[in-house]
């Protein structure tokens, strides 16, 4: 598993496409989804998936549980997630929950990942 993170618009996806020779068809965009298509190689925008799960109050779904439950299926993936950890505490409770859940998921993934990369202004630094 490779975890690639960085702030918004830092060129994370472009970095992965170039460095891992990824074709468009291999990318799963989390956009409006609450579940991951594990047939794809790259999972892009994990923070969006986490927010979508949290927004869906009906089934009280827990994004951290969803990620832990599916960890085995993620071991051969490249996961791209936006770092949202550096601002002030959001006043909106949903965004507070979101920030917390993304942090926990990233910690969990980075523990299991064989490689962790931070992208800053398009430049990747291998942290692990």
């Amino acid at each position, binding site marked *: 598993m490779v975890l690639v993170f*960085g*702030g*918004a*618009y*830092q*060129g994370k996806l472009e970095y992965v496409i170039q460095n891992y020779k990824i074709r468009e068809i291999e990318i799963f965009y989390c956009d409006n989804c609450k579940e991951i298509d594990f047939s794809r190689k790259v999972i892009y925008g994990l923070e969006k998936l986490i927010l979508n799960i949290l927004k869906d109050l009906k089934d009280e779904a827990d994004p951290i549980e969803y990620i832990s439950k599916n960890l085995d299926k993620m071991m051969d993936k490249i996961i791209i997630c*936006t*770092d*949202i*950890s*550096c*601002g*002030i505490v*959001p006043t909106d409770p949903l*965004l*507070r929950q*979101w*920030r917390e859940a*993304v942090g926990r998921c990233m910690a969990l993934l980075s523990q299991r990942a064989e490689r962790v990369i931070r992208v*800053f*202004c*398009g*430049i990747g*630094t291998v942290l692990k």
Partner: protein
Amino acid sequence: MLRIFISGGCKNGKSYFAQKLARGQSEGRMYYLATMRPCDNEDYERIQRHRKERHGWGFITIEQPVDILQCLNICDTNASFLLDSTTALLANEMFPASNVVNLNAPKKIAEDLTSLCKQINNIVIVSDYIYSDAILYEDLTEAYRKGLAFIDRKLAAICDVVLEVAFGSIVIHKGREVFMPFYEKIL
């Protein structure tokens, strides 16, 4: 003679650090490209404070809140330049007046700065890293953030050195081999 791009969190010493680098690579004339466009008294006071802080450093201040390439009409291109900041430059060009938005500004500024860096090889450019908070912004703010990041990435690609300043410490993202000999000399 380096093109140095600096980013990092706000209010953590980037400007002071950038001034030191610009002075360090100066062999004569030094220009400070000031980008802030004053809107009210608070801005005027801030600009006065910044000018006072720079006093004695030897910078010639050029007010260039928009159309950055115009500075080349009056400046000596062999001098040392400091541009602080792309953040203000983009705000000025993207939001030229109330209720006016120029969505083409990021592309235009990226092109201007690329051209500037081709004509000057001794420049420090400061930006702000505003990309890691957990807030869902409305479309206009998001477009501004995306635009600034676009400019940042272009500059990071063409500059010799890319630095992240974190409260006085630095992370060298690009150009360690050319930056360190220079940095050790001016420390």
